[in-house]
């Protein structure tokens, strides 16, 4: 598939960052949800975003595929300026996969249909090829035998792995994860994290909102701490956990490791 946008902009130049955010401001009505966000994510980089509830973590990553529109600033994804118009938004969404806390699988479709819908409708891939790709990714997330089932027949962990496979079927350049394990029973968390670790090893660019600090230590290139709509601290995991610079970060880390 070509990744040249209709106006001739090309996204694939190796030097461009995966995501660039510059002076981004986001309001919900009068509530200031993101305050002057500057962030650059390199290709292949794994970013973990953490912070207290309501700090703007979801909002931040939802801006990357424009599930939330921003009021100010520039967002460039894979060389395509999102904030420049709806055509670019469509283009970016094709190349950015997202996994939600609540899975958001399509309940009226089988696992296989969930995985083939977008490639067929958006990329124009024919059914047999879409199914081949889907089975390949279902194999990768280790549930090839569930292809004909409906989401409701699967466990939470299995559903979330289907959601990951569904996103991968679009052959994304960037994957966004919004608390992918928070809705799971504890015994299913690791099967999803393992899938994400595999994906990280394969070199996928990832932005992950999670409180799984073990995952952050193991996978993240950088950890972002957010509070009240601001990026308070960005650091490599070692420095982030052993020597947080900011008081608010220390308080937060104390709270989540405290229990």
């Amino acid at each position: 598939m070509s990744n040249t946008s209709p106006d001739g902009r090309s996204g694939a130049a190796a030097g461009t960052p995966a995501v660039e955010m510059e002076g981004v401001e986001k309001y919900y009505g009068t509530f200031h949800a993101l305050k002057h966000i500057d962030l650059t994510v390199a290709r292949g980089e794994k970013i973990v975003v953490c912070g207290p509830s309501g700090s703007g973590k979801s909002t931040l990553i939802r801006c990357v595929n424009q599930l939330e529109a921003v009021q100010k600033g520039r967002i460039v994804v894979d060389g395509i300026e999102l904030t420049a118009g709806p055509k670019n938004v469509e283009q970016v969404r094709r190349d950015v996969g997202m996994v939600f806390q609540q899975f958001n699988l399509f309940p009226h479709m089988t696992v296989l249909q969930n995985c083939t819908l977008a490639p067929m409708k958006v990329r124009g891939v024919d059914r047999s090829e879409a199914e081949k790709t889907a089975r390949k990714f279902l194999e990768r997330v280790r549930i090839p035998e569930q292809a004909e089932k409906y989401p409701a027949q699967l466990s939470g962990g299995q559903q979330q792995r289907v959601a990951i496979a569904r996103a991968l079927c679009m052959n994304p350049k960037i994957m966004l994860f919004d608390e992918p394990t928070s809705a799971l029973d504890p015994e299913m968390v690791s099967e999803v994290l393992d899938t994400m670790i595999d994906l990280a090893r394969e070199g996928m660019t990832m932005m992950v909102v999670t409180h799984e600090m073990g995952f952050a230590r193991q996978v993240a290139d950088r950890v972002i701490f957010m509070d009240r709509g601001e990026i308070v601290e960005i650091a490599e995991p070692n420095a982030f956990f052993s020597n947080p610079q900011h008081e608010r970060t220390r308080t937060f880390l104390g709270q989540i490791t405290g229990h």
Partner: protein
Amino acid sequence: MIRPFGLDEALFIVFAIQWTLALSAIAFAGGAVGGLIIALLRVSQARLPRYLALGYVRLFQGTPLLMQLFLVYFGLNIFGAGINPWLAASLALTLHASAFLGEIWRGCIQAVPSGQSEASWALGLGYVDRMKSVVLPQAAKIAVAPTVGFLVQLIKGTSLASIIGFVELTRAGQIINNATFVPFKVFGLVAILYFVICWPLSLLARWMERRFAVATQR
């Protein structure tokens, strides 16, 4: 001259069912198309179409069906379409059904969790594919029971078309009654015939509602 109420008279009434059913079918088919449009406008992101559709719905929900029939009937005449009960009744009932089905279906579309649309957007699906493949199929499942429920209302509503001279079940009853003067027998028969059509549909609607309730419990 008074005629006795015999088999011929009764059969005249029974055969008028076909016109009630035909009018209901036209209004329902037209209302389904109009209702889908209204529902989609009502959930649109843009403000103007949303408000236009809302105004339409409020207008038809806030006035009696009989007035809607009169206005269309006389309105068509004023605009040169002449006196045409078929056209007037079909058009008025279609407009009426569009408003009510539109509002029912809007509710069903909005009952589909927003995560379904978000997942569609995140996958890059456009408006048409998101609606056609993701949102509407799920909304349709919820919509079946209330839609059948409205169909029952619509069938009963077609009786008002008798007033503008459309010969359906009720009008056939009036015609026979004017000749036989046995109103209790005549309109008793008419009522029974409506009941025979509507009762099974009501049962169906209730059954589907129960089935849906069970399905969503899982």
